[in-house]
């Protein structure tokens, strides 16, 4: 019994179908608790005012945007090396979720930037990197859409994901070099407590857990859908040939 058995589409669907509702339920619960706690039960920060509460959406979505790309990278590698269809489809399934997370982070950031920095947009390194990440997602999804043959599409998007990751990291450093920013440093680092007090910290963690669960649920569900689409197409072809 190896983990690769789950790479069988049927086995994957059979295993994940019961998990999805639990993941969704957990996500909803965490988000509800985290957001209500964060929005209504925390004090207003001196410097930020009530706008600080955007953090409960902004930070988790920003983190998931990056993690989704990392997951796609791993899944692409698995496809290229072991050629498990499920992993290619999982990468495909994760992309729109990751892109949406990027958009949410960009949007909440812009909404937050207006009161904080007096502008919707600044060419801050962090913000700029996210814009570039958004373009990467766009290109990746567009490539999937453009190629009719699913295996070929999987191969090409995987290579794009590999090469793209290298350049994404390069861009990150280029952007840092290019402009000094306004944006906060990493809060969730080891010396986290020096940046942000526990009052905000705990609900944020709960929200983060919620976003992670939501991401897992969405990706599992979308992967299942992709598998079913492929299965449907295969059955259609079989039926067509039986007619001919």
């Amino acid at each position: 019994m190896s983990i690769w058995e789950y790479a069988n589409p049927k086995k994957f669907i059979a295993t994940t179908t019961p998990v999805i509702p639990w993941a969704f339920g957990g996500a909803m619960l965490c988000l509800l608790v985290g957001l209500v706690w964060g929005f209504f039960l925390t004090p207003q920060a001196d410097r930020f005012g009530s706008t600080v509460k955007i953090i409960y959406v902004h930070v988790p979505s920003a983190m998931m945007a990056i993690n989704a790309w990392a997951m796609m990278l791993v899944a692409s590698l698995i496809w290229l090396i072991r050629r498990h269809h499920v992993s290619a489809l999982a990468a495909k399934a994760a992309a729109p979720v990751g892109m949406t997370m990027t958009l949410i982070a960009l949007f909440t950031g812009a909404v937050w930037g207006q009161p904080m920095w007096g502008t919707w947009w600044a060419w801050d390194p962090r913000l700029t990197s996210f814009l570039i990440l958004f373009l990467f997602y766009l290109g990746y999804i567009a490539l999937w859409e453009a190629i009719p043959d699913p295996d070929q599409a999987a191969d090409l998007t995987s290579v794009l994901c590999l090469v793209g990751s290298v350049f994404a990291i390069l861009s990150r450093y280029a952007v840092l070099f290019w402009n000094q920013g306004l944006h906060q440093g990493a809060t969730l680092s080891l010396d986290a407590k020096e940046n942000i007090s526990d009052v905000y910290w705990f609900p944020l963690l709960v929200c983060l857990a919620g976003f992670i669960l939501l991401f897992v649920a969405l990706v599992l569900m979308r992967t299942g859908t992709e598998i079913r689409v492929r299965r449907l197409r295969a059955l259609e072809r079989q039926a067509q040939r039986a007619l001919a």
Partner: protein
Amino acid sequence: MKALLLRDLRLAIRAGGGFGLSLAFFLIVVVLVPFGVGPESDILSRIGPGILWVAALLATLLSLDRQFALDHEDGALPLIATSPLPLEAVALAKALAHWLTTGLPLTLAAAPLGVLLNLDPAAYPWIVLTLGLGTPALSVIGTFGAALTVGIRRGGLLLSLLVLPLYVPTLIFGAEAARRGAQGLEVATPLLMLAGITAGSLALLPFAAGGVLRINLR
């Protein structure tokens, strides 16, 4: 490889679209910018190096979709693929031909065009140096993108979309080095990074492009 390179160069010259296309486009962009942003020369000279870099990048981007598409349409690509030349070498030859017909003329034309943008005389050598260092990377990265989209009819859009994010680091370091050089600031770091990107792309991307071509020809 020499045969392929020579043929591509000859085709580019015959069609007139090689050297010409990208240069003309470069010229167009540089001419249009003052019409768009207004003729104040102080602003123009401040944004000059950046505009030259962006224009060069766009001109490169636009000549990319011919890289493999023409050979794909008329059926030459599978015939080249079954020749003794490995596809990695094909990609390298194509990138080289692209640079010779695009990157090199752009680099040489950048200095005279700078006049249109009221560029500071101190900026000229830096523009030429950074473009000369950076355009090979643009060609190689672009060839990889072209190889990715070769099977797709009218893949031009997709190509731009895929290649643009990959161009960002090159553009940032190139334009930054040009700007700093023009103002007499320290330029070693961006120049080194630029050279590093070019060297790395040249060493690795032909392999990626070859692999991707192989997938696309299946």
